């Protein structure tokens, strides 16, 4: 799948819901090869469908979900790649979306990609994002029951019993 | 009576010291085979000394009297077996008070004690270890019993009139002299069976599933500490000597003193040294080399291999010896 074709297919399917697209061409320093890295900025409503659309090409590999606090919003980036298994065939596909802090809900993709569970649980505890339909929403790296979200910039620190 | 008392004292301490020395040698040799330097040979003594001064912790949800009693029972049982075994040039101390069947029962006792102690210590690891200990015991008892019964029966057949289940008599009449070709093959099979039963009886790799460090963190002994653990360690060391001496008494009771024409004290010394060398060889073959050369098996695999192939071999040995007894007299 050519990166251009992939992008056009997404644009045809989701139209204005895809806000921006960028294709980076990463060149090997030996000068004999390059691979594409595609960045999509999408609305949070279409994330689930976008992943389903990606699965229709090849079952993607999800490296992780990265996230950061922008103040009023939280930005999430889903780092997928497809085309693995073929020599020099892999291309990275990233979906970026924003959720307002007042209503930090995103639809969970665990029903499509079961392996996303660890990454989603990590975003719940560290950034306070809520994933709808996630099979297990407990903390993973932080102790069970800890309510603070360490990666939020307005977080002031843990209180009370956790410090003992 | 006085002789019996002092004899018991000598055998008790002698057995413990011998057991610990052999354990030290075993650890050193295993280390050398694994390209390590290994601990000094006196290390087991140091371990025991350290354990004896350490606090004896009884877990909160243990049953204290069973938990504390089990190590004593284990040690008492193995030391008692020692009294029935011919050691060196000595005839057994308690000969006339019991026979091979009693020894079999006493041998089972430490494992039972360990399992009871494990169940009583109230830790899930120890409970699983204790269950495994019981499974192990059920696995190796039948091949062990088959080997011993076959031997005693054949001896009785060859020399009617002696008490064939007495270890003194078995040691006085090495079995190999009375066997025909079939019996010879059978006896070799039984030696092999006993050499495999020995590491299982001693809970050594590949049969150390009841303790299994990487799985159960010590299994039955996980909660034991201080004096109790020291007693269990000593019982383990003595048991090594007991198992070795038992196999020697059954199959290789030969002495050098008589062959060299030595009598009295000189003969005694030579016999004792020869016995120690034999014991070392048995432990080397059945414990050290096996535990260096194998991975730990699973409990289901141990149960299978003892119940099916090993019991089969033991019964084949038994049948061959019976046939030998019936047709080659």
């Amino acid at each position, binding site marked *: 799948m050519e990166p251009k074709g992939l992008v056009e297919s997404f644009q045809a399917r989701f139209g204005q819901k895809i806000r921006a697209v960028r294709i980076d061409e990463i060149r090997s320093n030996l000068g004999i090869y390059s691979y594409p890295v595609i960045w999509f900025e999408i609305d949070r409503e279409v994330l689930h469908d976008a992943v389903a659309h990606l699965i229709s090409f090849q079952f993607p590999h999800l490296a*992780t979900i990265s996230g950061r606090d922008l103040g009023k919003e939280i930005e999430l980036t889903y780092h997928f790649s497809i085309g693995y298994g073929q020599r020099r065939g892999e291309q990275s596909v990233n979906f970026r979306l924003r959720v307002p802090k007042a209503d930090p809900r995103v639809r969970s993709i665990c029903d499509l990609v079961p392996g996303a569970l660890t990454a989603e649980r990590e975003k719940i505890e560290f950034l306070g994002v809520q994933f709808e339909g996630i099979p297990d929403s407990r903390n993973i*790296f932080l102790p*069970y029951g800890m309510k603070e979200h360490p990666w939020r910039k307005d977080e002031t620190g843990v209180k009370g019993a956790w410090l003992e | 009576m006085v002789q019996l008392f002092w004899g018991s004292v000598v055998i008790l301490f002698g057995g413990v010291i011998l057991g610990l020395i052999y354990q030290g040698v075993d650890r050193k040799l295993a280390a050398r085979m694994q390209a390590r330097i290994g601990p000094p040979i006196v290390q087991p003594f140091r371990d025991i000394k350290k354990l004896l001064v350490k606090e004896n912790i009884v877990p909160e949800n243990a049953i204290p009297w069973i938990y504390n009693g089990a190590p004593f029972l284990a040690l008492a049982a193995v030391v008692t077996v020692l009294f029935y075994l011919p050691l060196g040039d000595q005839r057994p101390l308690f000969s006339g008070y019991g026979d091979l069947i009693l020894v079999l029962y006493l041998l089972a006792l430490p494992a039972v004690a360990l399992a009871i102690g494990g169940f009583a210590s109230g830790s899930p690891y120890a409970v699983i270890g204790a*269950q495994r200990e019981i499974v192990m015991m059920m696995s190796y008892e039948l091949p062990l019993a088959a080997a011993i019964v076959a031997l005693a029966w054949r001896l009785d057949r060859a020399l009617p009139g002696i008490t064939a289940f007495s270890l003194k008599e078995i040691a006085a009449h090495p079995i190999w002299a009375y066997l025909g070709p079939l019996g010879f093959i059978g006896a070799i099979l039984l030696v092999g069976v006993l050499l495999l039963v020995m590491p299982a009886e001693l809970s050594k790799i590949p049969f*150390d599933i009841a303790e*299994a*460090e*990487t799985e159960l963190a010590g299994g039955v002994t996980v909660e034991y500490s201080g004096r109790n653990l020291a007693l269990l360690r000593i019982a383990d060391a003595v048991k090594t000597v007991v198992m070795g001496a038992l196999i020697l008494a059954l199959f290789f009771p030969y002495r050098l003193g008589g062959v060299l024409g030595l009598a009295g004290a000189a003969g005694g010394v030579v016999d004792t040294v020869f016995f120690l060398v034999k014991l070392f060889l048995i432990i080397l073959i059945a414990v050290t080399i096996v535990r260096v050369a194998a*991975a730990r098996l699973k409990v289901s695999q141990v149960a299978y291999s003892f119940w099916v192939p090993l019991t089969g071999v033991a019964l084949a040995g038994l049948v061959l010896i019976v046939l030998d007894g019936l047709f080659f007299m």
Partner: protein
Amino acid sequence: MARVTDERTYYTIPIGPTHPSLKEPLQFAFDLEGERVVDVEIKPGWNHRGVEVLGMKRNPLQTLYLAERICGICSVSHLIAFSRAVENALGIPVPPRAEYIRVIIAELERIHSHILWAGVAAHELGFDTLLHLTWRVREQVMDILELLTGNRVNYALVTIGGVRRDITKEQEPLVRQALRYYKDLLEMLVDAFLHDPTIELRTRDVGVLSYKDALELMAVGPTARASGVKKDIRVDQPYLAYPALELSPITPDLFRPEIHGDVYDKIIVRLLEIEQAIGLIEQALAKMPEGEIGHATKEEMTELLVQIKEREGEGIGRHEAPRGELFHYIRFQADSEIPILWKVKCPTYSNLMSYRPMFQGAQIADIPIIIACIDPCIACMDRVIVRRDGREEVWTAEQLLAKSWEKTRRLKG
């Protein structure tokens, strides 16, 4: 701790955060029915130190040292992935010779990591003889790493835009000699691991991860390849000098006819990857061009820092670490050399999900080897600083340092 559900009694045994079969803290709670595992709950995080947040308070040249210390075993992997993320984000070129040197160090690390794993696996099976054997032969590659970089672990070799030390003409024969040593040894290792009856009994059909599970649960590295999922970034999306080298993903069907996805297959994959790594280093040594190795002088470092400050961008650095895909993502704003986002994802993070299907129906005895079979690196997953202590003798830190300098000098001849 008995618990009755559905009229059956399950025992729950906790394994970890500290347990003899775990080398690093990770907690499992197993529900058992007799000796059989019914369910498992996994709780990582006992080592979490928030390294990423620390990295968002430093400039990338300072973070290099932090990234390297995320994990002791795969330290150069973290450094390669981190440097590549920064280089991709800001468009910093790397000289070809440096790319080859990175490949050589990465593959040497793969050799030492896989041999180390083999020893740990043998120990979990109760086969300590193989543990001592493998860890002894591992010293050879540690010595070569020390010869090339000056350190046994945390090599401090890779930097943004290149490497810090060259491989000299005098060092090449010593590397080749070590490779020959491992080539001869490999046959013995394969024999000791794959033809040993007790190891076969303990690892065949144990900890099976099906192709479907491996794919859907995002397994990476040898764990995925042992189940037949051909994910290998060195082939799929080649980087460093890998596009110029011959390699293909290792799957267990190279050794036995079918892929089972069990622990035995994982041993096959790792042992064959040692062989592959030897081949890759030989190719790299043969093809390595002469030339620059990247930024080295103080002025050049300052220049680099200025570039980092001026430019903006985001980049992904992926590296096929010994345990699987290592992923670093970094994002810079203009006029700041401090990244606004740094995300590290290491192989164990991805492989964690694979534990559950592997434990289904396993026996207690299988637990340690299944835990070990993905080669978990908790330090990586929890992102912590691992410190390696010296021997607990009366050596002071200065004496130890002097000793290690002495040894490095001895290695250099």
